């Protein structure tokens, strides 16, 4: 499952570096892998709070992993963005409901609220950050803007892989316990997924709206910052949804914008709503049919 996460999400993160020619495949994979590992090891432990959702949660880890893998695979078949955090957590809830296990309702509500607020806050934060960045870069010459653009892309990619490691890999590690060794192992597995994804996947948000390299870096960075905030609170959120919502925010801040409404629908309905819903439904089924 983490290999798939690295293959899918990690590859999409590195795409922006490779397709723009800032780095080759190997160096981009190395950068993303180091971000994943560092994030998982340094701050993955902050997701251990999620174990409080139920004392029985760790009993059904195998079923949860199976359901998550199945849903991520299905959504990948339809080229739809898949949120590991939402699928993993909602399938856990689905199983716990069927098994009549005690659930920490307050924590569950906190998680669901964070899923609702993530895209809204992402749009707002990206909008404001882009406005600031845009007025800042006007002070420079073309060469300086190019340099800034390259540096921003590198930092943004590293930071987004760092928060992916901290939040998503940290979430999975929390259920297996044994941080930091387990976290390190999982992040290495995810890194292998990043390395082996030679075929470029589209950068997150590329089909949604055309944004400049500076806009893409700003959207990635502001989304990652928001996910990092939620990581400090121990709440699992979707990096994918956050980045794509940020791209919308940057698009709104641009004077001329053309949105692909079909992709917008796919982002909001599929990534945001369907991931969690499918996780809950399949989690229920797994709880009933899998021992």
């Amino acid at each position, binding site marked *: 499952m983490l290999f798939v996460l690295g293959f899918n999400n990690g590859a999409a993160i590195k795409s922006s570096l490779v397709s723009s020619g800032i780095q080759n495949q190997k160096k981009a994979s190395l950068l993303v892998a180091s971000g994943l590992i560092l994030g998982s090891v340094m701050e993955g432990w902050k997701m251990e709070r999620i174990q409080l959702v139920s004392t029985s949660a760790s009993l059904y880890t195998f079923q949860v992993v199976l359901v998550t893998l199945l849903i991520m695979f299905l959504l990948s078949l339809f080229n739809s963005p898949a949120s590991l955090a939402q699928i993993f957590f909602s399938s856990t809830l689905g199983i716990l409901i069927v098994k009549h296990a005690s659930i920490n309702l307050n924590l569950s509500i906190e998680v669901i609220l964070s899923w609702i607020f993530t895209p809204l806050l992402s749009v707002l934060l990206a909008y404001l950050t882009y406005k600031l960045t845009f007025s800042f870069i*006007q002070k420079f010459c073309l060469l300086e803007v190019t340099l800034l*653009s390259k540096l921003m892309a590198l930092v943004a990619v590293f930071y987004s892989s760092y928060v992916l490691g901290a939040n998503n890999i940290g979430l999975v590690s929390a259920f297996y316990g044994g941080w930091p060794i387990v976290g390190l192992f999982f992040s290495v597995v995810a890194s292998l997924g990043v390395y082996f994804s030679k075929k470029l996947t589209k950068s997150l948000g590329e089909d949604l709206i055309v944004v400049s390299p500076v806009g893409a870096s700003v959207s990635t960075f502001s989304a990652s910052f928001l996910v990092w905030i939620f990581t400090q609170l121990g709440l699992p959120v979707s990096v994918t949804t956050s980045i794509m919502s940020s791209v919308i925010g940057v698009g709104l801040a641009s004077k001329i914008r053309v949105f692909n409404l079909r992709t917008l629908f796919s982002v909001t309905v599929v990534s945001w709503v369907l991931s969690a819903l499918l996780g809950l439904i399949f989690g229920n089924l797994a709880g009933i049919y899998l021992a």
Partner: protein
Amino acid sequence: MRRVSKLFVSGEQEVTNSIRRHFTIVEKCVELLYSMIEKISEGDQSFVNLFSDIDLLETQADEIHKSASEKIASGSFFAYLSSDFLNLLERNDDIADATKDAAKVLVESNLSNEILTFVFKNLEGKEYVASLLKTVKTLGKLYEVLESAKKEEIIKFSHNVERYEEDADLIKARVMKELFLNSKKFNVLDVVVMKDFLNVADNIADNAEDASDIVLKIIAKGFS
């Protein structure tokens, strides 16, 4: 710190240096065309000798254009702006081509001294070519500051190129008008060829203006 940061953009600096190197030769072509016109206005028949120099320079420009284009196409400079820089090189090369074509018209058509004197001494023919040269030189100044100047300065230079191109158009229109008003004094073929020269030479300023538009596009995209 500066050295480290220059490492990150050394490829981009090479691109802008290539454009400047290429354009230096293009500018020399247009200067030679103007020298040709000066000789014609003085009645100096040795103007035909300048054509071989223009031809040589245009060939050199082609070679630099080819190698610079290959470098831009194979590298990853200026990220998503590389196709715009390729278009820019192409437009600059078109200036050199138009210069050679215009010179060729004058040299190979064997125009009468009467019409040459009329257009380049009596009318504003020489001023017309001078305005074409001014347009090209302003474009050259734009390239000097392209990578290091602020956005507003680049836009200002670009607008100057457009202005001088418009001035050249106005002069050309006046010359054409006078040429046709007095066409009965000259051989019909000479009038047609002279008209041809004015239109071909006009491509020099038109391509310069197109190039300045591409620079504006680069600035709009680069600073977004």
